[in-house]
C-alpha cells in the first residue's frame, strides 16, 4: 500500500484504508478495555457489581470506593487506607530515581569522555547487571541490608533500587554520550573547565532527552516493583504495590471489588502521569543519536 498525500485514493486503496482503520480501532478497544472496566467498577456500588454487567457504565457513579481506599481500607490488619503507602512509594521512588539517574550520567560520562584502561571491559561488567534476575539477589541483598541496619526501611529499598537501576542508567547514558561530540569536551577543557564543570555546564544541559528516558524507565520500574518491596519492606515502610496486594488479598471480609479497583488505579496513576507528561520526550530520546542534529 502506498501512501498518497493530498491525492484521490483509488477504490482498492480506499478499501484497505478502511480495513486498516477498523483494525486500529478494534485493537484500541482491546487495549483500553481493562482500564475502562477498572474505572467503571471503581465507580459502582458493591450491589451493582454483584448483579450487573461488567462493561455497563455505573448507574449511580460515586467516589465512595476511592475515599474508602484512600482513608479506611484494610491493608492487612490495619484499616487506615493506602495513603501512607502511596507516599511511601514516593519516598522510595523519587530518591531512587534521582540517585540512579545521576550516577548513571556520571558513569556514562566517565566511560565515554574520560576513558581509562579497561573502560570497555568495565562497561561490559556493568551491563552484566542488567541480566541478573531479581530473585537471585534476594538472599544476599537481605543479608547486606540487615548488616547495614536498613532492613524494612525506605532507605533500604532506595539502596536496592539504585543498585539495580545503575546498570540500566549507565547503559542509557553511556550510549547517549558515545555519540556526544568529543570536540565539545576538548573545547571546554581548553576553556578551563574541569571534570565536573564539563559535566554540569556542557554535558548535562544537552542530555534532556536521555534524562527523560531514564527517569521514565526508572520511575516505572521502581514504582511498579513488588518483589523487593515485599521482601525488604513489608511492614510500615511497604510501598504502594505491596499495599495493593494486601488490600486485594485480604481474607477477612467481603471482597470489595470497587475498592480494589480504586486502589489499583491509585497505584497505576503516577506512572501513567509520568508517561503522559514526558512521553513525547521518551520517543524522541529513544530516537536520539540515530540521526545527526
Amino acid at each position, binding site marked *: 500500500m502506498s501512501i498518497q498525500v493530498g491525492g484521490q485514493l483509488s477504490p482498492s486503496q480506499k478499501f484497505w484504508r478502511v480495513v486498516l482503520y477498523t483494525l486500529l480501532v478494534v485493537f484500541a478497544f482491546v487495549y483500553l478495555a481493562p482500564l475502562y472496566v477498572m474505572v467503571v467498577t471503581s465507580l459502582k456500588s458493591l450491589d451493582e457489581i454483584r448483579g450487573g454487567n461488567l462493561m455497563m457504565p455505573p448507574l449511580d457513579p460515586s467516589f465512595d470506593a476511592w475515599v474508602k481506599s484512600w482513608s479506611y481500607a484494610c491493608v492487612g490488619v490495619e484499616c487506615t487506607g493506602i495513603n501512607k503507602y502511596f507516599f511511601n512509594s514516593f519516598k522510595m521512588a523519587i530518591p531512587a530515581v534521582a540517585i540512579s539517574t545521576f550516577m548513571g550520567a556520571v558513569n556514562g560520562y566517565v566511560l565515554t569522555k574520560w576513558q581509562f584502561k579497561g573502560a570497555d571491559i568495565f562497561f561490559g561488567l556493568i551491563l552484566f547487571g542488567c541480566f541478573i534476575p531479581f530473585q537471585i539477589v534476594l538472599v544476599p541483598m537481605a543479608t547486606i541490608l540487615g548488616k547495614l541496619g536498613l532492613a524494612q526501611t525506605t532507605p533500604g529499598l532506595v539502596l536496592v533500587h539504585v543498585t539495580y537501576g545503575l546498570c540500566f542508567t549507565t547503559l542509557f547514558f553511556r550510549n547517549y554520550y558515545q555519540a556526544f561530540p568529543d570536540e565539545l569536551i576538548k573545547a571546554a577543557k*581548553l576553556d578551563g573547565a574541569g571534570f565536573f564543570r564539563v559535566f554540569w*555546564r556542557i554535558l548535562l544541559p544537552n542530555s534532556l532527552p536521555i534524562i527523560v528516558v531514564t527517569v521514565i524507565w526508572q520511575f516505572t520500574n521502581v514504582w511498579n516493583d513488588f518483589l523487593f518491596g515485599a521482601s525488604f519492606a513489608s511492614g510500615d515502610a511497604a510501598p504502594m504495590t505491596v499495599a495493593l496486594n494486601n488490600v486485594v488479598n485480604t481474607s477477612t471480609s467481603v471482597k470489595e471489588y470497587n475498592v480494589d479497583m480504586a486502589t489499583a488505579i491509585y497505584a497505576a496513576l503516577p506512572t501513567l502521569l509520568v508517561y503522559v507528561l514526558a512521553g513525547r520526550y521518551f520517543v524522541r530520546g529513544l530516537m536520539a543519536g540515530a540521526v545527526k542534529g
Partner: protein
Amino acid sequence: MASLQVLNVIKKFGDVEVLKGIDIDAEDGEFLVLVGPSGCGKSTLLNMIAGLDSITGGEVMIDGKVVNAVHPKDRDIAMVFQSYALYPNMTVEKNMAFGMEMRKIPKPERDKAVMKVAKLLQIEGLLKRKPGQLSGGQRQRVAMGRALVRDPKIFLFDEPLSNLDAKLRVEMRTEIKKLHRRLGTTIVYVTHDQIEAMTLATRIAVMKDGILQQFATPQEIYDRPSNVFVAGFMGSPPMNLIPAKIAKDGDGLSVEIATADERTLRLKLNGTGKGLSAHVGSDVLLGLRPEAITDLESSDSGGDIQEVECSVEVTEPTGPDMLAVLLLGGIEVVSRMRSSANVHMGEMTKFAINMSKAVFFDTETEERI
C-alpha cells in the same frame, strides 16, 4: 604572542607510531600551516600542542618553556575546531564568554571583551542566539570569536574551513589572513588543502605518514620541493615528474628524455644543474611545474629557456588560463599558459621550457638532488 618549538616529538598509540620525530620551530607571529593527506598525523600534532593528547616522546615548547606536562587550560592557547564545537545549550555570547567565566573574570570585563570581538567579526547581531539558529558561516565566525576573546599566546586552527561551501571558504580564508595581520598572534593551522596552506602560511610543514617532509616558506616549497611527495602534493595541477637521464654534453650537462620511437630528447642544462655532475649516467626524475612549460610567446623572459616541439593531446581552458596535456618525449606532461595561447588539440607546436625552474629527484630515494 609566543614562539613555538616542537622538538623530536613522537606519538604512539599502542604499538603504532603515529608521529615519528617531528621538529618544527615557529617564531613569534608566525602563521604555521601543517598540511598533508588524511592520516598523516597533523591533527594529532595539533592536539599535542594543545595538550589534548599526551606526548610519547620529545618536547613541545611555548615561549621557550617546555609545556609537556602543562594542563591545556594553562598553556594560554585557543583552538578553533573543525566542527566548531560550539556549546549547543548556550547563546553565542555565553559561548564566547565561557572561557573567561571559567577563569573567574568579572562579568563587566567579559561583556566588554565579547563586544569588542563581536564587532571585529561583525557578529554583534547574533550574540543572543543559540548555535542551532546559525548558518555554517556564522557558526564559523562564532567559533573564531570564542578563540579571539581569550587573547591567547597561540591560536590553533583544526581544518576550520573544511565544512564551508567553496565560496565562503575563500572569503573566510582572506578574513583569517587579515586577522592574522591585524593581531600578529602566532597561529598553527591544520589543513589538507594545499591552496589554503600556500595562501595563508608564512611557513608550511608538509607531513606524510607521521614524518615531516619539508618545513619551509610556501615559495620555497613550491619552487624547490624536498622530495617527490611534496612535489606531487603541493600545487594543482601537480608538478610534472619526468623520468630522465643526466648526460655529459660538451663542457656542460644535459638531460635526456626517452621518446616513444626510441630516440632521446635532449635538454641542455646551462648552469642549472649544479651538483648534478655526480649523477651523470644515472636515472633521475625531472620536475617541472606546469607554468614552466608554456607556448613560445608567453615564455618567461629570464632564465634558461629551451624550445621543444611537442604534440598537444588535450587542451583544458579554465578561464583565466589554459592547461594543455603535451607529449614531452614519451611522457604526458601538463603545461599552463594564457587562455589566449595559440595551441590546438592534435597539433605539433613549439613550447618553451624554463629549465632554470627545473628540479631533479633521485629515482631511488625520491629526494631532491
